[in-house]
């Protein structure tokens, strides 16, 4: 590390492979100071302006918001809040086209500006050195700061790292042609930027702080050197101009000679890189309590009559910025001549090499928008070519000569066209940083980056599908396993049940009847007695006594009662009229039966029948005379039972029950001829 500093002190740097020297075109805007624009009528704030997730909404349509008020809050570490750039009213929350290469629509807050620009309450921090590390990180997180260089990685995550940081690198390279936003910010706000660097120094405590700046910004270099004169730790490193020096990995290589392992973050090598505009935003947030609500945007290109750097509020539509700088539409003039509808000339957000053309003029400025480029046809003809001028690759290898990642662009191109994903991975497609150097130099004018983007998207999609398939497979396997387990368990259960059944059957044969059946019979007898007594005492309806919740027992009881009643009556009268009575009783019994049939519980019915049979058996045991008859009746009962189980028709079942009842009555009649009475038996 010391040797690295020695080298830097001597003004020697390392090199990264490749790189290009496109025309700079920075002079268009570099000389004019940053202009403060008047407030636009409406602001469109996308909820998500960074890598990660969008925050949760805190406002609803119609709310009045003050400047700097948080509009979303983060519930996730990767979520970054957005703030109202000025005071006004939320007029809508709906999907709108955002700054995205594919012209996607995302949820946006529409703020009608009231023009008063009233601030929320602010707390100015006099001395940030008294703040704790966590307090500063919280302030940065609450201010909604995301990397302002391009990717928009949440800053509070980047600065919240383990303590052993060797190098804090401030990226002031601004290597893309045309863009001068950082350049002018450094010229005009060097003190604030250095404050931001000091704040970062306080959190990260790096061994050294290196500011990487290309030598095409002499004024900014001077301003930074002036501002960091008394700080030993900070080194302003003036680098030769070459695109893409501002690439994170390329800048690290130039300054430290280290390469960041593919697939890892610089922090794992003890390096943190922050954009210079982010440093300014940090100092604004921590010291002045101003959240990230504005940024410097370079408005440039020959299609603008007044190219200029401006302070643009986040959410300002591009149309407003173009209006302010005198945008002339070359093609629409031609359109009137040709008469055929043609799209407007390209308007690019970002630089000419990595920027993307925006879908329409409603696209708002977001945290990562550093430049709006409106080129004329003469200065950037390839941007106007709708038809690709692509011809076959002649393998000249100029692309691999300029590739900063040392890839083989022409081989990647063959594989991308052939959709050979395996080969693409082998050629390290995912180390491509989309810098566009290869496509810039390609004499065959092959849109190489476009091919890589498509291939990358396809591979990602395939990976997602693979993951999905893998999950589905795992789910299927788990289900198969579970079903298997259940099957085994079921078999086990069945085996046990079978064993139990066998055991009980053995018991039955041994005892001549199960204990439970004996108990049920006893219960039935007790109930029968009770019922008999009740009926003797009062003529209450049968239903009233049916308070038992259990249907099985209800049915059993009812049947038992009915039987008991009959017996009692027969005893009471002891007359030949009994037959008549029986006939009158039968409908009652059938009624009872039908009631129980409403429940439609076969088990209950079977149980009832069994109970009946048992009861009968019990009574018959006492009258050996009718034993033969009883056995014949039992057979009948079982027969009727079979019919009840088989026949689903209620009528059939009722008829069977009636038949059973009649059969029983007959048995009873016969039993009465015997000298012993039921009464005695039941007692």
């Amino acid at each position, binding site marked *: 590390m010391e040797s690295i500093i020695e080298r830097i002190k001597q003004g020697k740097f390392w090199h990264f492979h490749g790189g290009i020297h*496109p025309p700079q075109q920075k002079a268009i805007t570099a000389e004019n100071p940053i202009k403060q624009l008047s407030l636009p009528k409406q602001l469109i704030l996308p909820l998500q302006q960074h890598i990660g997730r969008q925050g949760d909404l805190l406002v609803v349509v119609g709310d009045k918001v003050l400047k700097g008020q948080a509009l979303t809050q983060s519930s996730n570490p990767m979520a970054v809040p957005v703030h109202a750039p000025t005071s006004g009213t939320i007029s809508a929350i709906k999907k709108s086209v955002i700054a995205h290469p594919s012209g996607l629509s995302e949820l946006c807050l529409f703020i009608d500006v009231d023009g008063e620009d009233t601030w929320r309450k602010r707390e100015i921090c006099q001395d940030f050195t008294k703040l704790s590390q966590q307090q500063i990180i919280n302030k940065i997180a609450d201010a909604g700061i995301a990397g302002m260089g391009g990717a928009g990685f949440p800053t509070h995550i980047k600065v919240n790292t383990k303590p052993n940081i060797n190098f804090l690198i401030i990226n002031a390279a601004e290597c893309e042609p045309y863009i001068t936003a950082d350049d002018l910010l450094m010229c005009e706000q060097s003190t604030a930027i250095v404050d931001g660097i000091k704040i970062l120094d306080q959190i990260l405590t790096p061994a050294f702080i290196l500011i990487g700046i290309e030598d095409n910004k002499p004024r900014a270099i001077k301003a930074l050197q002036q501002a960091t004169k008394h700080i030993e730790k900070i080194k302003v490193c003036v680098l030769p101009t070459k695109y893409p020096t501002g690439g994170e990995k390329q800048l690290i290589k130039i300054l430290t000679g280290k390469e960041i392992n593919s697939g890892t973050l610089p922090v794992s090598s003890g390096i943190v890189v922050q954009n210079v505009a982010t440093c300014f935003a940090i100092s604004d947030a921590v010291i002045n309590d101003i959240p990230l609500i504005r940024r410097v945007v370079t408005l440039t290109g020959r299609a603008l009559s007044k190219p200029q750097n401006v302070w643009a509020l986040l959410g300002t539509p591009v149309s407003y910025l173009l209006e302010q700088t005198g945008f002339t539409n070359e093609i629409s003039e031609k359109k009137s001549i040709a008469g055929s509808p043609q799209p407007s000339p390209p308007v690019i957000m*970002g630089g000419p090499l990595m920027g993307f053309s925006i*879908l329409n003029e409603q696209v708002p400025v977001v945290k990562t928008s550093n430049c709006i480029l409106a080129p004329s046809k003469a200065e950037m003809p390839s941007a106007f070519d709708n038809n690709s001028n692509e011809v076959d*690759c002649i*393998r000249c*290898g100029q692309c691999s000569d300029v590739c900063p990642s*040392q890839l*083989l662009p022409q081989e990647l191109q063959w594989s991308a066209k052939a959709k050979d994903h395996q080969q693409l991975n082998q050629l390290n497609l995912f180390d491509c940083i989309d810098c566009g150097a290869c496509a*810039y130099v390609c*004499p065959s004018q092959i849109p190489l980056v476009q091919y890589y983007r498509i291939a990358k998207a396809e591979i990602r999609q395939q990976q997602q599908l693979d993951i999905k398939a893998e999950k589905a497979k795992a789910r299927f396997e788990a289900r198969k396993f579970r079903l298997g387990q259940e099957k085994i368990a079921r078999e086990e259960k069945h085996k046990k049940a079978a064993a139990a059944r066998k055991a009980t059957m053995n018991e039955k044969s041994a005892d001549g009847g199960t204990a439970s059946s004996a108990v049920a019979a006893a219960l039935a007898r007790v109930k029968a007695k009770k019922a008999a007594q009740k009926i003797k005492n009062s003529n209450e309806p049968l239903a009233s006594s049916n308070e038992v919740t259990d249907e099985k027992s209800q049915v059993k009881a009812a049947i038992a009662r009915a039987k008991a009643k009959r017996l009692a009556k027969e005893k009471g009268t002891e007359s030949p009229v009994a037959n008549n009575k029986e006939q009158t009783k039968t409908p009652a019994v059938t009624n009872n039966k039908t009631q129980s049939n409403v429940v439609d519980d076969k088990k209950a019915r079977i149980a009832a029948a069994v109970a009946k049979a048992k009861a009968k058996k019990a009574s018959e045991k006492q009258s050996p005379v009718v034993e033969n008859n009883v056995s014949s009746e039992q057979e009948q009962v079982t027969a009727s039972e079979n019919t009840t189980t088989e026949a689903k028709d209620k009528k059939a079942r009722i008829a069977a029950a009636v038949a059973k009842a009649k059969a029983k009555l007959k048995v009873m009649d016969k039993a009465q001829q015997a000298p012993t009475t039921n009464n005695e038996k039941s007692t």
Partner: protein
Amino acid sequence: MAFWIASSPHNHSQAKTSVLMRLVIYAALPGIFAQWYFFGWGNIIHILLAVTTVILCEFIVLSLRNKKNIRKQLFDGSAILTAILLGICLPAIAPWWISIIGAAFAIVVVKQLYGGLGHNPFNPAMAAYVMLLISFPIQMTSWQPPLALMTIDLDLANTLSVIFTDFTKEGYSVQQLRTSVDGFTMATPLDTLKTNTGLGLTVFESMESSIFGKNFAFGWEWVNIAFFIGGIVLIAKKAIAWQTPLSFLLSLFICSFIAYSISPDSSASTMFHWLTGGCMLGAFFILTDPVTGATSTKGRLIIGALAGLLVYLIRVFGGYPDGIAFAVLLCNMAAPLIDQYTRPRTYGHQVQEKREEAK
């Protein structure tokens, strides 16, 4: 107002394949001029014949392949360059059908049958040259001596007459044209050297022959120097990679130097190897053909070195006096394999291993 949607990068260096090809053609002009100066109109006539043929063939094949924008592809310069290189290589007084057959073969078989520009595994001009050399050995070895050594005045009309009728206006045959004052048939310096060393003469004795001139090879040395200058311009303009010619010339130099130091009697000097035959043309215009060469820096160095070695071996031990064409074709075959094994290390890959090795 909807804007024009395009993919980044939006800017382009405005480099074009056709511009590149044209530059190579311009760079070949000094060499062609030197050829004209020393050997007459023959090669220019062959170049014109070949160019006409390739344009015709290219047009027919592209039409058959239902290609769009034929005009653009036809004049992208690649076919014309092929024709020019072939025309330069042919013996000046070879009959007219040689260049026509060669050019047609180069375009139809070697280039378009493999898929057209960028898809051909072999250098079309060299493949055609080898085909002609094997099929028509007499016509393809009927090299004439430099004009200054000839007894017959070979002006434009005479050259045309020889190429189209096999006889000059005065009725001299090709064979007679090649015969010097003393009745010996003249050949190229490489040819002469090979024959003489085969006869047991030392190199010094052979070099007495007038065909070698005062320095190394009368006429040929200037043609080679002219191509060398053109090549340097191409490298300066970054139209070709410097690795291939450098390693080729070095390799040839080293081989001939070793042989010359061991046995100066039977081996020609290093400069003789550099400045005779198609050495410089091969180094700067043929081997550097991007389509059929290696693409990585290391690969280019390997290809160049391999070609240098092959050229030397063929010149000294082979059956043919010069070996550029054969060496190029062999290297073309090896190029994909060399590319496969000379892939550069991608940024951020194998960093760990490198560090461990360093420790």
